[in-house]
């Protein structure tokens, strides 16, 4: 098969090379506060629910969201710190030992950190890394809470792509699951979590 | 300026008023118009239908007939698009780079009538008068091949007494498409009927465009519907002194 490709292409002398200049926008122009506002704005536009808090009140904020959702159980990546869990009333299931698919299907919510968030598109990217754990955690329970720290927010897509390790298993999330397959009317909540809560954590002075 | 007129086969055969209007306007503006009598069809239909060799015979003729003229003007965006774009592409597709260069050269001297007025003569008011409500249909060739968007509308806006109305979804194809109207006549008519409906919804008395070919298509459907809508090429409106308040 390769021979037919190579034959189709002819010799190397005529082949184009890749330009290194990027004429499109590669970085944002907004400051940190504006970026955060833009991200929250875009998330709300997708009908994700967004709250802000500071480091000290992260656990109580998570707890509040779980209560509002009526969750009695929550799955967490194995490495989340105690500062996230110490105020939680729901039963916490850390993913160690690994939670089975059946276990996860019975758990009400998941809490996860993220790798990077892109403000312009309202995109949260999980890369199975620190405080995020396996992809199944953020997929099976019906309620997902994602924790984003200010310094994880970039403005435009190229900045986001540059921060990611290519060989990590990633999930890019931009709102709850949706479909437009029925008469092109956008409906939320097909497979995957139907409720998405986002907590944006800032240092106290910036709130 | 000495301007060579490229009349086009459709106009020559069916709409002689249009090129006559072009002459009238250009002479009114003080230019000399000449008509090289050896001209023929530009070959657009042949090239678009896939008959490259035949179409390029006509392209070569065009190049030869218009060889001695600095400026060639035509009241057909589709023919000008053919000369400027399709000619060289077709020649290149057969590996004839020399012919392609020649054809690109003549293309650089060829202008659609309204773009000639606005971009070369830098004129938007040609002293016309036409007291009617007019809708303008941007033909696909004029809009997407030649990039003419605001310029023709500017010319119409400067016509005394003319009320210009906008057609909803104006940039949608009318469905003529040359060969398309023959090979896919059902779809062509469906598109034309939708276009006609949008035009009629404006309440205009007259529909104008830069291509008579599109106007034959919409006009045919309009007359079968007994709509009372008149079809006119933009050049004819620009030549009109009807009801002029000054001589």
């Amino acid at each position, binding site marked *: 098969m390769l021979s037919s490709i190579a034959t189709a292409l002819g010799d190397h002398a005529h082949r184009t090379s890749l330009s290194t200049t990027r004429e499109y926008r590669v970085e944002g122009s907004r400051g940190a506060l504006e970026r955060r506002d833009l991200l929250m704005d875009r998330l709300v536009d997708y009908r994700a629910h967004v709250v802000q808090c500071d480091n000290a009140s992260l656990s109580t904020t998570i707890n509040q969201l779980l209560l509002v959702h009526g969750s009695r159980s929550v799955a967490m990546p194995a490495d989340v710190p105690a500062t996230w869990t110490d105020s939680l009333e729901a039963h916490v299931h850390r993913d160690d030992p690994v939670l089975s698919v059946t276990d996860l299907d019975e758990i009400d919510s998941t809490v996860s950190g993220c790798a990077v968030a892109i403000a312009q598109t309202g995109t949260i990217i999980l890369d199975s890394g620190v405080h995020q754990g396996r992809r199944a955690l953020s997929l099976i329970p019906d309620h997902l809470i994602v924790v984003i720290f200010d310094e994880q927010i970039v403005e435009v897509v190229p900045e986001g792509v540059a921060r990611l390790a290519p060989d990590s298993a990633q999930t890019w999330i*931009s709102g709850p699951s949706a479909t437009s397959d029925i008469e092109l009317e956008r409906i939320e909540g097909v497979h995957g979590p139907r409720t998405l809560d986002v907590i944006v954590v800032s240092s106290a002075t910036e709130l | 300026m000495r301007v060579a007129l490229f009349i086009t086969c459709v106009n020559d055969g069916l709409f002689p008023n249009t090129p006559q209007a072009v002459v009238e306007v250009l002479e009114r503006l003080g230019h000399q118009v000449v008509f090289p009598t050896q001209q023929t069809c530009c070959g657009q239909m042949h090239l678009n239908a896939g008959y490259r060799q035949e179409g390029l015979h006509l392209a070569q003729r065009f190049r030869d007939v218009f060889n001695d003229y600095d400026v060639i003007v035509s009241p057909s965006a589709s023919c000008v698009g053919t000369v400027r774009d399709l000619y060289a592409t077709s020649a290149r597709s057969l590996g004839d780079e020399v012919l392609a260069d020649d054809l690109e050269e003549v293309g650089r001297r060829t202008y659609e009538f309204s773009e000639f007025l606005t971009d070369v003569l830098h004129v938007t008011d040609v002293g016309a008068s036409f007291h009617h409500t007019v809708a303008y249909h941007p033909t696909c060739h004029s809009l997407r091949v030649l990039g003419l968007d605001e310029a023709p509308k500017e010319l119409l806006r400067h016509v005394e007494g003319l009320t210009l109305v906008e057609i909803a979804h104006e940039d949608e194809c009318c469905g003529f498409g040359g060969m398309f109207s023959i090979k896919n006549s059902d779809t062509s008519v469906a598109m034309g009927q939708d276009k006609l409906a949008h035009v009629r919804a404006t309440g205009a008395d007259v529909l104008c465009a830069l291509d008579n070919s599109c106007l034959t298509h919409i006009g045919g459907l309009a007359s079968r519907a007994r709509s009372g809508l008149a079809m006119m090429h933009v050049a004819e409106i620009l030549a009109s002194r009807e009801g002029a308040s000054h001589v």
Partner: protein
Amino acid sequence: MSKVFDTELPFPTLAKTALADAQLRANLAHATTTIRDKRLKVVGELDDWEQLRSAGAAIKDYSLDHLDELCVELERNVIAHGGIVHWARDAKEANEIVVSLVQATGVDSVVKVKSMATAEIELNVALEQHGITAYETDLAELIVQLGDDLPSHILVPAIHKNRSQIRQIFIDEMGKSGLAAPEGLTNDPAALAAAARAHLRQRFLSAKVAISGANFVIADTGSLVVVESEGNGRMCLTLPETLISVVGIEKILPNWQSLEVFMQLLPRSSTGERMNPYTSIFTGATTGNGPSNFHLVLIDNGRSSALAEDTGRDVLRCIRCSACLNVCPVYERTGGHTYGNPYPGPIGAVLVPQLRRGERTPLENSLPYASSLCGACYVACPVKIDIPKILVRLRSEVVDATRASARPRTPRDESRREGLFVSSALPTRHCHGWAGRAPAAAEPAFLTAAAQQVERGSRCATSAGDVISHVVRSDTPRRCRPGTRAGHSTCTADPPP
């Protein structure tokens, strides 16, 4: 049962029927105008949209120009991450490979993520013939499958159905293959989506084998990118033990950074959103975090033939966004079935005749003429494929084929193809055969023999022998041969030392 396109009627004949279907036309008009407006809005937000389009076209052109090298690099990186790579010259080979892989797992059903490539090769039919049921999980594909119907659009395949029609399909058919539709199901889209969720959930949680395509595959990392909205992709790509991804070779991007361009071009052009709800990116096998068995099946199926064309090869830039469909006045009025194959609309009219070069049925001959050449598709295309120009070029091929012989044609008529190239006088750079390219030292003898055969043939492009189905390098691990069970002792996917 899976239905496939099997008409050979020409476009104008099929169009006549479609144009008379008032329900279809109403559905299409509503759908295409809605999505058109959405696209314009989000594209208008970006002041660098034209630069992104240019970059997208340039990156794709580079990839196509270096496709042979990138294929090799991709394979190396996928294997390095525990995946297995298979090569399929055509649909038949691809189906044989996938069927064998599924049989090796012992299951009799698989879950599928929507994939144009698998529709193109008619994979579901091949699986069925071997007693394997392929359950579509994308909502629109589910609707089409339950309704024993054909897809009519690349992105929203059930667009020709309205909510009442979908409700009826769910009520009539869901119970036959799984959880039935709930009592009193209304035609409210939210209720219909909820019914689909319930019907598919158990399937997702228990599936052992999934089949997907990919929107992009990245050569320098070996990563696959799957763009979706509903979450069915995530389910299929994360939960089963075995994942088989079928991908056309033209989907290869050179490097990770290219995603910064395409993850802007694709969502805005396809669904008219700033970003689609879910995108999954993974590399190779993701044991402990996804399927521990990953197979990548790369298909040619006519793509290298299109690659040889100087004008027509631009169709291989296509990222399957369907923006062209949504702006096409012909598609809007005739719908997707009229094009007679899984790729409808403007891109279908230029892609299909090139992928199926040599099979001049009345349908394929009519596709290049199924356009008024209005150019709206070219304006909308995120990778700047000049579709009108390619249509005109394909028309000249239809005409030239008629010139070359007056006798009736048969498919794969080699002398006729030669006539085409002689009369077309392709630029010489595409007429170099394998001659002058020394095979790598590690290549086995049959590969060298293949190269010599091609050189003797000394013809352009599409007549190249296709004599090898995959490249076996002595320095890469032996992959599982189809038919063996996973876990066989010779089937390792260890990285090279």
